[in-house]
């Protein structure tokens, strides 16, 4: 097992390098040549060259990329064009807010979706099933930022229960979390239901019933553990989507997280900040994906056996 984890960690390296290169290349196109805008209109060619060197913009794309990775390994993401602050510092300052939002969202979404999905599957075609499926469909079809606006409209402006934005206290996180979590909960409910329906058809449940296992245990013990396997596999992708969704929620609710950082930086064409934030976030996603894969291996002995061989 340890060898497998080590192997997976090693396999992570080319993916991370690829991700970093992709983002770096895209942002390089986006940047154009920022030296002119920083140097001002009346700079001499010599001044511009000196500035280019100082900003680390000399050399080919590959050279700059290698330099960037070298700095990254030292924990240096460069300096913001606008605020002149250390990008890594700013990122780490914003990250806890985003993680707080993402974690709460995922916990609530999973806590709601799995019981709902199971009930819907067990009572297939009942009123409960239809209701949860219609709700899930609506949740899935609603753009999250619009949902955020509606939530502000009702719960902040009309009812005054929650603040319209900011990050003070628990009450300010509730609406952003619902905004990000609704589509996730909807998707998870649907996945749980279809996975459970699939498991409910399996022969081994018939074996369990023939053994005299009570219906409750057939569902909770025998079926659930098998149904969870495909749900875990989509978890990694969903974490990525939650981080994506929080970009919008953070904009709507002025939540000072990584998403806001990126959007503001793009507005200001602050390339080092955008590149740094994207690279770091993607690395986070990749590592979470690895963790999910490992959990997956522990839940499903068949996968575990493949790995330990």
């Amino acid at each position, binding site marked *: 097992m340890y060898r497998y984890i080590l192997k997976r960690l090693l396999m992570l390296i080319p993916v991370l390098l690829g991700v970093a290169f992709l983002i770096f290349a895209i942002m390089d196109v986006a940047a154009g040549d920022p030296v002119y805008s920083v140097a001002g209109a009346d700079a001499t060619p010599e001044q511009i060259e000196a500035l280019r060197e100082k900003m680390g913009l000399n050399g080919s794309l590959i050279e700059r990329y290698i330099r960037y990775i070298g700095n990254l390994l030292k924990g240096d993401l460069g300096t913001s064009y606008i605020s002149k602050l250390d990008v890594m510092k700013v990122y780490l300052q914003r990250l806890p807010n985003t993680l707080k939002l993402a974690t709460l969202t995922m916990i609530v979404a999973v806590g709601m979706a799995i019981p709902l999905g199971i009930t819907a599957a067990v009572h297939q075609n009942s009123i409960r099933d239809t209701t949860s499926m219609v709700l899930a469909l609506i949740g899935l079809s609603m753009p999250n930022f619009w949902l955020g606006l509606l939530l502000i409209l009702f719960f902040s402006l009309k009812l005054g229960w929650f603040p319209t934005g900011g990050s003070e206290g628990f009450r300010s996180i509730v609406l952003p979390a619902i905004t990000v979590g609704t589509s996730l909960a909807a998707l998870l409910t649907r996945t749980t239901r279809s996975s459970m329906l699939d498991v409910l058809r*399996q*022969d*081994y449940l*018939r*074996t*369990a*019933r*023939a*053994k*005299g*296992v*009570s*219906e409750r245990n057939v569902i909770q013990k*025998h079926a659930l*553990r*098998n149904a969870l396997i495909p749900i875990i596999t989509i978890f990694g992708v969903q974490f990525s989507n939650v981080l994506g969704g929080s970009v919008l929620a953070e904009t709507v609710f002025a939540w000072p997280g990584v998403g806001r950082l990126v959007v503001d930086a793009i507005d200001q064409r602050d390339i080092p900040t955008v590149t740094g934030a994207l690279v770091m976030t993607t690395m986070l996603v990749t590592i979470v994906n690895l963790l999910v894969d490992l959990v997956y291996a522990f*839940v*499903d*002995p*068949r996968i575990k*056996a493949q790995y330990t061989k």
Partner: protein
Amino acid sequence: MTNQEANDLILDIKNLKVRYETQDGIVRAVNGIDLTLRKKRTLGLVGETGAGKTTTALAIMRLVPDPPGIVECDKLEISGQDILSLPENKLEHVRGNDISMIFQDPMTALNPVFTVGDQIAESLEIHEHLSSKDAKERAGDMLELVGIPRERANEYPHQFSGGMKQRVVIAIALACNPQLLLADEPTTALDVTIQAQVLELMNELKEKYDTSMIMITHDLGCVAEVCDEVAVMYAGRIVEEGTLEDVFNRTLHPYTEGLFNSLPNIKDRKAKLKPIKGLMPDPTNLPVGCSFAPRCNYVSDACLKAQPQLRSISQTHRVACTAYDNPEFHIERRIL
């Protein structure tokens, strides 16, 4: 029937009917069958795909999925205990304890995420209220009984071959020493030599535990080896039943004859096979008369009009065929 015989009665079914109400119509899987089975006896339930064999077994376990399955029955008793009127929680005490079932496909019959030891121990915990440690111990005993070293109790199903899995399934079924064992094509999915091993094992254990058994199969060879009595099913009805000798040596029903004639004769390799013509009837649209009439070589007008009832030919031998209205009638098959 004497009192002694009545006490010996393990299974008593009267007029069992099962239908599945689906989008595409009502599938009439079982259409009024009676079955009785005495202690220590083994009944072979023979028929082809769609004859209603598995549904019959599921109905005995009260495991026909509802919806879409609807079960109607006049009487369903296991050792004199009425199973029909039992509520679900009482049924759980019967399943795995008084009646057990072995399923056709060992590849899918075991839960992939639990160890085989846990899966055997589970029924012991439920029915004999053993602690999990004692149950584990007994599960190990059961594994040894079916010829698997007890050390393998901590392994998962995917680590076992097909034959080994079927042994595990048998261990689960026999763990609580049931009075009646329903075996649904237990060897069909296995290789010939493994098939022989498993049949042998089942015969051995049946003797040892005085278990009565219903062996569901399409393989007449298997029946010859394991069963005392035989019931031949076609389109949800029993068309012929009797002792093993009755059905094999004094065959009465044209369908049974057709089954025998379809098999290659190992003694005479040049003999031409005489298959039954045509196909099984559509279970959503069964003919009014005898379901076998369209494929039967002896068909007459009377066969198309009414459903033939089972009639006794001897004390043990019964057949459902209108042709026997004529006392002269006999089928071609003769056993030397």
